[in-house]
């Protein structure tokens, strides 16, 4: 093994160690990047190694931080978080979810199904995982727990539904992937629709069957008088959600505009139901600040980690090792996906896309794979991009280190421990892997829709 490879292993080792002894995630990731750089410099000085490492390179962090600050897209993050907190604090979310529970009371698991469907809507409107996980968690977890759902199922539902956001178009991940691979964004959007819907459907089927056992709420047939009350509870918040999400989906408003309107609308709803006083407002604003910041801190930390990784030429090392594998095309593609999955333990999808795609896209192109998509340009890259997208999405909810898991942990009540979240997501991960295999074996699942459009 070369010293560079050992150093890479050390780097991932330090991070895992930090995370497991309980160093706060954002600082564990940032600190690992820094310490690895220091370690490389020390080795260069005393052990005649030639690691590429210097602090000047980490100086790029300033620019990365600035680009995060000035991203007009991320402005939507605090808005969605505020909307979630407002709906929760004012009791509107609880009312909404309770009403769902009653309406679907003849359908076991109706509540969790509703969460998944709202997740799908959210997914179609924002690609920010942090925002959708937080929003869904705040709105639905307390009610699900109250209605006898296990902590595991509640967490699993929220995590998996929240992560749909990066796959279902229009998603910023697909835009960046298209950019990096040099394929058409439109094709990629079309390609992601079917896999995204399949995933959602498989979640729903699982929740339906699982909930037969865990949903302990009574089956109460609806009374006539109830109906009016229920609709009064459901309509305002649902209308808000549909207005917000629909306006993004149909291109009437940008995600930022819609998120701001959503936050405003949630505030008005809370006010009109007399649940909004200064104290609640202040608390919501502070909570929004804290939640947004811990998510942003993780993104900044991840930038440090990936800058160090790239300076060490970790991407080249990974590429060389993949190319040296004694497998055929299938083996190499699987190895790349495995690598992306592993990186998903440590890095945000933006970082992974930046580290991996420029080196693997040419490998895939060079394979000249036969694809079913007729008339579709670069069909193999589009198929591969969706494989990558689903893999990334899977790795965010895969323990031990999954970003969605930590986002969820950051906003759930104390009684929910990390182990509940870990256990809860496992069935969903299995579903994800099944869909991944399906896409792998039958590229038509991905290519059918875009080739129709072409």
């Amino acid at each position, binding site marked *: 093994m070369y010293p560079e490879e050992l150093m890479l292993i050390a780097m991932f080792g330090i991070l895992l160690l930090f995370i497991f002894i309980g160093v706060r995630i954002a600082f564990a990731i940032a600190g690992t990047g820094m310490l690895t750089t220091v370690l490389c410099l020390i080795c260069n000085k005393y052990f005649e190694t030639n690691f*590429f490492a210097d602090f*000047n*390179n980490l*100086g*790029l962090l*300033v*620019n*990365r*931080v*600035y*680009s995060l600050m000035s991203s007009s897209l991320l402005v939507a993050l605090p808005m969605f978080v505020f909307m979630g907190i407002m709906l929760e604090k004012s009791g509107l979310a609880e009312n909404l979810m309770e009403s769902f529970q009653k309406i679907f009371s003849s359908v076991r698991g109706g509540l969790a199904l509703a969460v998944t469907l709202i997740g799908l809507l959210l997914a179609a409107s924002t690609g920010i995982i942090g925002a959708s996980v937080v929003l869904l968690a705040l709105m639905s977890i307390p009610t699900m727990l109250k209605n006898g759902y296990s902590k595991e199922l509640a967490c699993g539902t929220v995590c998996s539904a929240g992560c749909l956001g990066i796959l279902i178009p*229009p998603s910023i991940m697909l*835009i*960046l992937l*298209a*950019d*990096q*691979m*040099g*394929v*058409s*964004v*439109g*094709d990629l*959007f079309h390609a992601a629709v079917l896999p995204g819907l399949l995933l959602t459907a498989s979640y729903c089927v699982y929740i339906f069957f699982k909930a037969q056992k865990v949903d302990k709420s009574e089956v109460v047939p609806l009374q006539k008088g109830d109906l009016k009350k229920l609709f009064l509870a459901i309509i305002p918040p649902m209308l808000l959600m549909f207005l917000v999400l629909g306006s993004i989906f149909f*291109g009437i408003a*940008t995600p930022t505009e819609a998120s701001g309107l959503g936050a405003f609308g949630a505030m008005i709803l809370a006010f009109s139901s007399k649940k909004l006083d200064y104290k609640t407002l202040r608390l919501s604003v502070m909570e929004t600040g804290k939640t947004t910041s811990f998510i942003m801190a993780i993104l900044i930390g991840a930038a440090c980690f990936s*800058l160090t990784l*790239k300076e060490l*030429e970790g991407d080249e090392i990974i590429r060389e090792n993949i190319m040296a594998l004694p497998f055929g095309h299938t083996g190499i593609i699987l190895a790349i996906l495995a690598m992306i999955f592993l990186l998903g333990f440590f890095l945000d999808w*933006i970082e992974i896309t*930046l580290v991996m795609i*420029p080196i693997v*896209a040419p490998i895939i192109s060079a394979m000249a794979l036969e694809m079913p998509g007729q008339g579709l340009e670069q069909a193999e890259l589009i198929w591969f991009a969706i494989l990558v997208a689903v893999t990334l999405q899977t790795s965010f909810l895969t323990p031990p280190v999954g970003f969605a898991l930590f986002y969820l942990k950051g906003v759930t009540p104390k009684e929910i421990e990390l182990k509940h979240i870990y256990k809860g997501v496992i069935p969903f991960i299995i579903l994800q892997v099944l869909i991944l295999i399906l896409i792998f074996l039958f590229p038509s699942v991905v290519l059918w829709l875009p080739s129709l*459009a*072409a």
Partner: protein
Amino acid sequence: VRRKKEAAHGGVKTRLKIASSYNSALPILGDSVKIMADRLELSSGGAITVRLMEPQDVGGLQAILEAVSSGKVDAGYGSAGFWAGKMPAGPLFSSVPFGPEAGPYLAWMKQGNGMKLYQQMYDDAGYNVKVLLCTVLPPETSGWFRKEINSQEDLKGLKMRFFGLGARVMEKMDVSTMLLGGGEIYPAMEKGVIDATEFSMPSIDKKIGLYKIAKYNYFPGWHQQSTLLELIVNKDKWNKLPESQKALIEMACNESLMNSLAQGEGTQFQVMKDNVEKYDVHIKRWNDQMLKAYEQAWKEVVKEESAKDKFFDEVWTDLSQFRKNYSLWEDNAYLPRHRK
């Protein structure tokens, strides 16, 4: 002989980290620097290794100038037009509406005062960079529209993605403009955030799928008759390089100038043909009245910019003078374009 061999390329190993403003997957814009990097590594016998960074690696293309100047990366590849917010004269060194074609533009740069003024712009603004030219592109298309544009009236109120000084011209035509990165254009068009866009040449526009979403492709590219891209190198890094490596980098840049022009000129017609035959794109030409309106608006923009920034005025005056002098040669030496 042996000593000479050892001293090849100064006997110094150089690692050049180049941050690119374009994703390396983009043809011509993005891959010409990649080709240049490969050629540098090959021809230096391994003395120079290049590490290419994507724009997002350094926090977006706007970050590149500062990153190069402060030595966080060694070099940056892109367009001086991106630095308009920092140096108003920047766009004049990249592309000028109703400006020179590739030949005379290069002539002004290399034979006239262009390069001198270019370097002076960076020096005066306090940026610690050495500037080299390394890509030249033929004309761009001047936009993809969803409807036919026959008069100024049709343009009014459109929201359009537009680059550089041309954007100022479009603003004068009551078009509201914004500058989006290559990847952002398609989704913005799809959602109606913008109604029209220009990006680059047909072969590059094809990559981001514009032919699917807007069917009226307008020519000529009055706003960018040719485009120059730069390689800026951190000055301390540059000064420390052995002379042979400096020469090698300059040669690689010059080679890239030629390659990019050939590639740009050679790869458009097939794409345009496909656009029309396979994807029902209408290739349109601006009528004379529209071109006149654009030119009139451009003259106003120049006046405003020259009044605002002294150095802009200086560069503009020099370029205009050069073009005036050049016209004696151009008018006599070249066959008229509409000869067929």
